[in-house]
Every structure is written in C-alpha cells, then in structure tokens.
C-alpha cells in the first residue's frame, strides 16, 4: 500500500498547475529540438538546461525529464520520416520505419511508435516506483568500498554494452575521470590541473564538456557531409491505427516493454541496447523474418517501446544509487547538482516530494507525448523541411548563450570551443564521447570513495575483495570484460551492432 501512498504524494506534486505546465513545456521543447535532424537527446538537454536554472528543483527536474522524452520521441519522428537517426537508439527505428514511410504508411508508423512508447512508459514508471524503495534501502547500507566497486562495475558495464572499441571506450572513461579531477581538491584545498587559471578552480562545467563534445562536434560533422535528404512530408496521413495493425503490433510492444524495462536498469543499458535487443528478438520470433527491413510494423513497435521503457528505467540507478548509467543520466546528475541535490538513496527519504513528483511526472510526460505529438505531427513535419543551413547557426547561438549563462562568464564559452576541437578529433578517431562524460561525472565521487575506503582499511587494498558486496560487483565487472574479450562472443557482438 506504500506504493499507492507514495504515488499519491507524487500526484500531489506533479498535478499542480505550474508543474504540469513545466512538464508540458519540456515535452514540447524537447520534441521541437529533438525533431531537428542530427540532434540527439544529449545536446538537446544540454542546450535547454539553462532555461531550468531559475526554476525550483522539482519543476526543473520535471521539465528536464519531459525534455528527454520529447527529444527521444522527436528523434523517432525524424528517423521514420527522413531516415536520419538523431541519436543511436533510433537507428533501429530507421530500418523499418523509413520503409513504412516510403510505402505511404508514415502515419501508421508514427502512431504505433507513440502508442508503443506510451504503453512502455506506463509500465516502466510502475517498475521504477516499485523497485525504488527496496533498491534505495540496499544502497543506504553501502560503504565507500561498495560504492567504489559499484562505480567500477557501472563504468565497465556502460562500455561493454555500448558499441565500438572496448579499449578506446575505457580510455575515454579514464580521460573523463582525469578531467573530473580538475579544480580544487576537497581534502587538501590544493588546486589540481588548473594551470593557475582562476576560472578552473571550481572545475570544468559538465555543460561545457557536453556542448563541446556532443553539440559542436555533431554540427561540424553534419556540415562536412553533403547529403540529400528525402522527406515524406505529404504522405503523413492515416494516423489512426487500424485494428489489424494494432493486433499485429501489440505483442511486439509488450515484448519491447519487458526488454526495455529489464535492460534499462543495467548500467550502460538504457535506450540504445534495449532497442537493438528488441529488434533482434522480433526478427527471431517472426514467422517471416524477411519482412524486416522492408517495413514490418513489429520492427517499429518493438524497438520504439523498448527504447522508451529503457530510457525511463535508466532513471532507476540514478535515483536509487546516485549512479548515472548513460550520458543523458550524467546530464541529469549535473542538473541536480546545479540545484544542490546530491543524487543517491537519500533523495527519497530527505526529499520525497521531489522523488515521487518526478516519477509521477514521468508518466504524465508520456501521456502528453501521445496527446501532443499525434495532433501536432504537421508542425513537426514542417520543421523537418527547414534546411540545415538555417538551423545550425541558431543551435550554435543557443549553445553559446546557454554556456555563458552557466556562470555568466565568457571563459566557459572559450572552453567549449576547446572541447569542440577535442570532440571533432574523437569523431575522426572513432572514440565515443559518452563514456568520457560518464567518467567526468563519476570521477570526483570515485576518488572520494576510494580515499575513504582505503582510509578505513588502513591502506589495505584487499578490502575491495573481502567485503562481499564489493567483491561480487568487482567480480561481475571482470566477468563482463572477460566475456567481451573472448573472441567468439566479440564476433557476435559486432554482428549485432552491424545490423
């Protein structure tokens, strides 16, 4: 019955007029930006973050969550209509969604994506609400050694489950950890890696890194490619699902929801992995797998539900353990810190209004997505017609103003340029920037917990192996690494990401 009481608290917070408005505004803005080709959720959130500075913490987080769902759904719209994935998790949607659009079934694809996302979102919200309390209770028993091992496991899992070279991804994490050190050391007051620059004494802002590595680098890469886009704008009709389509899609939606809710909880899981897994499952289960890639409705319904469920479930490690599992969650940690909330198990007990309010508004955000997107689809389609040459200067400007208003300081804008160059180099060298952001956010926490754990054990490193929970987590991390290094599985993994 606690669950109902808690959700009641949540509804009390989320259903105030102001918070409903912020949720709505977030979903609307998120979709608006997310629909623009080539802009995924990370730059969208980073760009819109400054708007939330002045809001009370609950409203700010509600709005950011809304922005996230909006951006995610906006990305799917672009994937279906233009065959341009705004982010990696909608790559899968491109496969069959775009084919459906080419066959004149864009409307069906868009509405099955919306309905699937809604069902998945509702279920995942319930999962969060029921898992949060027990998980947070476990987390409260964690000492520094357990926290350190948990973070190691989280970081390793995040790179193992992502695509690309493992060595490079681990390197990017370590680089992120190093960047996180910049600034004043809390224990000794010493300035580290600040080169005597007073602006660096508080460290680099995570928005600076996110904008440079994601937004700026993406814009530059987009400009390097001269591509013709084919948009199916005149054929968006028939938004009402036919019963036959719905019946065909429903099992895929339910399976996608299950897959997403499970995989999303894992560190590094989230939207991307869920979408891939769901597509593979649907293809395996289909009587006629050859339909996939040619406009199979299950190929849109499954992954779209899975990526929404996964996106939502990835809030679980953040809210209960204080550990972000992907780049978007790393941004949410940053946003919480700006509002001086330390993410972790204590949020639920110290600030139940914020916690349950946020969870309920996740569900409300999903309702708004359906209500908002299907009727407004015409507007999104018009936005898709705006040529990129007019969009990117505006995006650049919003990034600049956003970075500036962090601390009202030009220095941050100049730092973003530095990270823009770095981000461009990373793209050229095929180094994923997401692990770097995770490392950057976790760096200070990791050092602090390492120090405390070894202080308590008087410098005995075996403490990580002798405390059972810590040992299990480190063991899992090693196991994950071994699995991925084993050649046969590595081949399979590459195949899976190729698809």
């Amino acid at each position, binding site marked *: 019955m606690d669950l109902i009481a808690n959700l009641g608290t949540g509804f009390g917070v989320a259903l105030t007029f102001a918070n409903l408005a912020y949720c709505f505004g977030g979903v609307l803005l998120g979709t608006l930006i997310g629909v623009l080709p080539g802009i995924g959720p990370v730059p969208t959130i980073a760009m819109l973050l400054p708007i939330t500075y002045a809001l009370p913490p609950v409203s700010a987080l509600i709005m950011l969550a809304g922005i996230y769902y909006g951006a995610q759904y906006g990305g799917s719209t672009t994937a279906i209509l233009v065959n341009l994935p705004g982010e990696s998790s909608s790559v899968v949607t491109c496969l069959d969604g775009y084919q459906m659009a080419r066959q004149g079934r864009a409307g069906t694809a868009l509405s099955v994506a919306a309905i699937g996302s809604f069902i998945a979102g509702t279920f995942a919200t319930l999962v969060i609400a029921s898992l949060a309390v027990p998980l947070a209770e476990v987390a409260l028993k964690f000492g520094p050694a357990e926290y350190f091992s948990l973070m190691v496991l989280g970081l390793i899992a995040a790179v193992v489950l992502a695509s690309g070279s493992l060595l490079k991804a681990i390197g990017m994490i*370590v680089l992120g950890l190093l960047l996180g050190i910049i600034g004043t050391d809390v224990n000794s007051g*010493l300035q580290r890696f600040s080169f005597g620059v007073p602006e660096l004494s508080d460290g680099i802002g995570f928005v600076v890194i996110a904008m440079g590595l994601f937004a700026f680098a993406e814009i*530059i890469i987009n400009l*390097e490619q001269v591509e013709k886009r084919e948009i199916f704008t005149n054929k968006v009709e028939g938004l009402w699902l036919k019963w036959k389509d719905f019946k065909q899609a429903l099992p895929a939606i339910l399976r996608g929801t299950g897959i997403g809710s499970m995989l999303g909880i894992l560190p590094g899981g989230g939207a991307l992995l869920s979408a891939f897994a769901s597509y593979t499952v649907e293809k395996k289960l289909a009587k006629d797998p050859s339909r996939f890639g040619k406009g199979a409705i299950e190929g849109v319904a499954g992954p779209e539900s899975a990526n929404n469920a996964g996106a939502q479930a990835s809030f679980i490690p953040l809210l209960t353990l204080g550990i972000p599992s992907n780049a978007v969650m790393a941004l949410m940690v940053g946003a919480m810190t700006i509002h001086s909330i330390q993410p972790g198990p204590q949020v639920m007990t110290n600030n139940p209004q914020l916690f349950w309010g946020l969870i309920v508004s996740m569900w409300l955000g999903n309702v708004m997505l359906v209500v908002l997107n299907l009727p407004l689809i015409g507007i999104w389609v018009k936005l898709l017609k705006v040529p990129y*040459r007019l969009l990117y200067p505006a995006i*650049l400007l919003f990034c*600049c103003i956003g970075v*500036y208003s962090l601390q009202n300081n*030009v220095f941050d804008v100049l730092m973003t340029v530095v990270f823009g160059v770095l981000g461009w180099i990373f793209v050229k*060298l095929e180094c994923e920037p997401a692990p770097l952001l995770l490392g950057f956010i976790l760096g200070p926490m990791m050092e602090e917990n390492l120090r405390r754990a070894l202080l308590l054990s008087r410098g005995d490193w075996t403490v990580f192996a002798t405390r059972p929970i810590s040992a299990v987590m480190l063991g899992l991390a090693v196991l994950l690494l071994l699995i991925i290094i084993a050649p046969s599985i590595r081949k399979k993994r590459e195949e899976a990401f190729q698809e």
Partner: protein
Amino acid sequence: MTFVRSPKDFWAGILFIAFGVAAVTIAYNYPLGTAARMGPGYFPRGLGFIMIGLGSILSLRALKVAGGKIQFASFKPLLIVLGSVLIFGLVAPSLGVIFSTILLVMLSSTAAYDYRWKESIIAALVIAAFTYVTFVWGLSLQLPVWPAFFR
C-alpha cells in the same frame, strides 16, 4: 607511415598516451601520500599511468591489426563553426548580445555547402530578434544587450 595498419586506433592511442604523460607529469608536483592517507597526487597519477598503458596497447595493436583510415572531408566547417563561437565569446561582453548574435549567425552560416548570403542576413536579424524577446526579456540574460559605446 605504412607500418601503421590502423591509423584511427594508432592516433587514438598516441592521444591517450599524451594525456597520460601530461597527467602524470603535472600530478608529480602534488603530494602523493600513502594508500591509507591519499594525497591529492595519488588518484591522478594512478589514472595517468592507466592512460599511458591503455594508449600503448592501442597504438601497438594498431601496428598489427588492420583498421579504418581517418577520413578528412574538409576543415572548413571546423574552422568556421568554432571560429565564430570563439569570436562570439570574445566580443559579446563589449559588443552586446544583439550584435554578437548577428555576427555569430552570419559568420557561422558560411560553413554550409549551400550558403546563401542574403538569406543569412535575414536569418541573423530574425534570430537576433528572437534572442532579444526570449533571453533578454524572458530569461533576463546577464550579458549586456547593446555595445559599450551605446550605453
């Protein structure tokens, strides 16, 4: 450099090594402490060594295992986009947000392959007006609005 069989991995490795060496060298000036009482130099130095190790494995493996070449299309977008942001950052405090906005939009527009100068002027004015309404009125931005010699 024909003995490098995977340039992407090789240079990524070199980059990691460079960051690692820098971290270790700079952190050398910070007290190391012991494992039980870690000084501010302990964690960064450790990370630096890990970085050097990872980078070395990556670069050495790139000599054996073949991989992708680095694709350079054009440096124009990189220079124009980041250059215009840099200029925006430098001039905004003195020139004010409206003129800096116009400058940023017009300069950065030139990076597009289908650049049209007339259109970019109109875009700059529209975006500047939007900035005024949203950021100056709506969100009370801290940047000065007009140039220093107007005020």
